[in-house]
């Protein structure tokens, strides 16, 4: 049989089989398996091979057809019970019939869809007044089982949490202002202070500082002054205040 130049496209192996059966005008219940298999294979050989998934689906059916063909060639055997063996084509016929049925119904659906396209529906036109309507709030549901007492308890919890959040020491520093510290000037200031007082407490010195940066720099200057021996320090116990004493004239120190 000549293969048409332009291959018809089939939905799948079953579709192709049905086509061959119809084309040869043979009974679906009595498929001439040799003929159909031959034509089926011919088609598959000429199939475009781009999509291997598609080709493999067709090849599975080819294998099934060849399997049936083999079984048909073997002499019919009676089973032990004396019943005749089931026709090897039976399963395939069943599948073909089922597929054919759905394919037929799909054509019915197509017609139904075309008819239904002649009915038009309307888009919603909800009046603005209706659209903008807001259902009244169900306050009972909204408030639920929160009582005034619950609100009160909650407020106490919030205030407590709020107090805890504030670190009493650091909160004393006040606002942090970004400010460039003039190191030389700062050093002179600190030195002048200690020299003037001869003896002073570390906290006194810090309380003179305007902000965090000044405090840090002052602390660093003190450390340097201790290192070069310009001042002496004394602390009675851990966490107690530190006493600073003037030891010898200051030399200019390099802070890094």
């Amino acid at each position, binding site marked *: 049989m000549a293969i048409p130049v332009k291959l018809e496209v089939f*939905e799948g192996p079953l579709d192709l089989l049905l086509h061959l059966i119809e084309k040869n005008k043979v009974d679906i219940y009595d498929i001439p398996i040799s003929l159909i298999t031959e034509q089926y294979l011919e088609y598959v050989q000429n199939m475009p091979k781009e999509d291997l998934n598609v080709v493999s689906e067709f090849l599975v059916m080819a294998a099934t057809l060849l399997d049936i063909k083999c079984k048909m060639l073997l002499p019919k055997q009676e089973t032990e019970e004396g019943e005749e063996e089931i026709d090897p084509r039976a399963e395939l016929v069943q599948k073909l019939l089922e597929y054919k049925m*759905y394919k037929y119904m799909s054509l019915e659906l197509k017609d139904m869809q075309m008819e*239904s396209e002649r009915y038009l529906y309307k888009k919603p036109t909800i009046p603005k007044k209706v659209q903008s309507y807001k259902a009244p709030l169900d306050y009972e549901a909204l408030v639920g089982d929160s009582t005034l007492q619950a609100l009160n308890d909650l407020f106490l919890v919030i205030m407590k949490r709020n107090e805890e959040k504030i670190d009493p020491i650091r909160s004393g520093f006040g606002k942090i202002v970004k400010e460039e510290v003039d190191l030389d000037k700062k050093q002179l200031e600190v030195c002048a202070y200690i020299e003037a007082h001869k003896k002073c407490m570390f906290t006194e010195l810090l309380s003179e500082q305007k902000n965090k940066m000044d405090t840090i720099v002052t602390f660093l200057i003190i450390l340097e002054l201790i290192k070069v021996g310009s001042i002496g320090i004394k602390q009675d116990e851990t966490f107690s205040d530190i006493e600073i004493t003037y030891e010898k004239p200051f030399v200019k120190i390099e802070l890094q």
Partner: protein
Amino acid sequence: MENKKIQASIEAILFAKGESVEVKDLITALECEEEEIREAIDHLKTMYAKSDRGIQLVELEDAIQLRTKEEFYDALIKITTVPRKQTLTDAALETLSIVAYKQPVTRLDVEKIRGVNSDSPLNKLLEYGLIQEVGRLDAPGRPLLFGTTEQFLRSFGVKSIDDLPQMSPDVLEDFKAQAEKEIQIKLDI
């Protein structure tokens, strides 16, 4: 509520919404008995059926909706824009008929019947809103189950799945006989 008022309210709701409205929602909104609503719907149906009316009431499972009568389509397309047609491929139609008649079905069910992988037509049908996920099969892998939607009923002009044209081996036999006859006729000519 007075019968006339129920009827008018249903018409007002169906008109404004345009979309389908479930009967049970009407019962709640109008604070009526189901019987009263059903009666009003029947009245509306009869009223719309008259020849001087251009719209009709359709039932879709347990919802109702208004639409234009088919006979006015030709006049309508002259003046309104008709929604773009969803042309379904043969593969999609085949898949849809399997889902419609065998629902709920899994992807594998469809694939077995069609003999080919059917992911692409299934996805298209989902996208068009003609089928939907309706649950999962209680089997290994718990595969998704698909069924048709209300949009399917609308698009194919049926009230419910039960109203789909019957599919039986008899129909198929008829179909076959018919086909053979056609061939015969052609041969005779």
